């Protein structure tokens, strides 16, 4: 289905918060994030004639525009996230899927440690885990947004969790929350 202009604008505006949050995650800078969101909407408005509403709505389409925009900007500036092969990412993470080592439900100190552990993840993992955990995107939506196969989404998520588990286990031991 091809939405008319008014429908398109309404759908697009509904995703502003989602886009802003991902932009903050990608850029780690409020002003740059706002620029990125604005540029994403400009591109989306220009490209709206080619947009067709599908199963997951407009969200993956807008996220894909933003992700591509940021990737090309980062490459141009030779800063920010660089393309990293999954093999490289894999070597940085544990191959063994570990259960989460501690109770994450109510521990303020652990939240701080979790922030650090999350922020230490490679950007490719952060994007996936952000879309999965914060935006509650399905694997297929994440795959569409990042233009990677669904299997890559699942493996990145799996490895990100393994890595978090690894790091938080060490932190939990350091804090005396659990014993080795």
């Amino acid at each position, binding site marked *: 289905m091809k939405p008319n202009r008014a429908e398109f604008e309404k759908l697009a505006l509904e995703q502003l918060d989602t886009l*802003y949050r991902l932009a903050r995650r990608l850029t780690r800078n409020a002003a740059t994030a706002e620029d990125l969101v604005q540029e994403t909407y400009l591109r989306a408005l220009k490209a709206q004639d080619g947009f067709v509403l599908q199963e997951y709505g407009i969200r993956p389409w807008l996220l894909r525009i933003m992700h591509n925009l940021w990737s090309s900007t980062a490459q141009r500036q030779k*800063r920010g996230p660089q393309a990293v092969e999954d093999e490289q990412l894999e070597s940085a993470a544990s191959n063994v899927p570990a259960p989460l080592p501690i109770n994450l*439900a109510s521990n303020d100190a652990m939240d701080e440690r979790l922030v650090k552990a*999350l922020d230490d993840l490679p950007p490719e993992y952060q994007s996936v885990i*952000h879309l999965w955990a914060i935006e509650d995107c*399905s694997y297929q939506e994440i795959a569409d947004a990042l233009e990677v196969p669904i299997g890559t989404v699942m493996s990145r998520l799996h490895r990100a969790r393994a890595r978090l588990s690894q790091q938080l286990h060490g932190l939990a031991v350091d804090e005396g929350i659990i014993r080795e």
Partner: protein
Amino acid sequence: MSQMEPQSDEIQLKQAIGRAWGKKAAPLDLRNRITGMIVQQSPAARSTVLRMPLSPAPSLNFAGLAGLAIAAGMLLALGLVTAALLNGSSSSPALVGTGLPGEVANSFVYRHDACCQAKDHHLLQGINNDSLSAVARAMSAELNVPVVATPIDGWLFAGAGRCRVWGYPSAHLLYRHEGQTLSVFSIPQSSLPSITDNRDYEATLNGHPLAAFSHAGGLYCVVGYAADDSISPAQVKDIRDKLRDNFPAVAVDSLAPGVAGNYH
């Protein structure tokens, strides 16, 4: 890993990540800007989409009457857009003026407002920020177009930065005078849509007078703002005219390599 029934530790992890990273809403001013930008999508901006298929001799691509009918329709659409432009009528309630595409004007205004909020706009690392000639030389070499960096009568130079407009790098000089703020942007024309060389542009957008000129491959845009509306379009236009009349005779090729830096 099944998505059908999330395991309890998945839910727990999602909640913990939610707490750690937060789920912030977009700032209100960003929301206003995006909403305004959508409203300001003028026929001028959309006309580029209409024009593109016409340029490579469309009749060659069409067969018979159907092709002619489509071509005629496109020409009619282009004619309507052109007529709207010639009449100076814009669908935008906020943008007044001609020539400068609404979204580009919006991008200049956005950057002006965002940078005015900075405590210090001396943002160029490796360059003496208080030396306008040093700023001009370094940024000209970096952008590959002459950069306008000059004192402006009655205005206090408040610093320069590498700032993005329309997603592309520009040299942004900020000036202040009592409650008024003034920006002078230098940006390659190639970064912007629908800009032609040796032309003046004027517009007013959301209380911000803009006046620009294009020359020597660059677009030079002056943006003013005062909360009490004490800066007029005529003042900004006058400043633009002075900058244009004293345009720096800088040979970019002769400049030393600039200091590459990050644009915000």
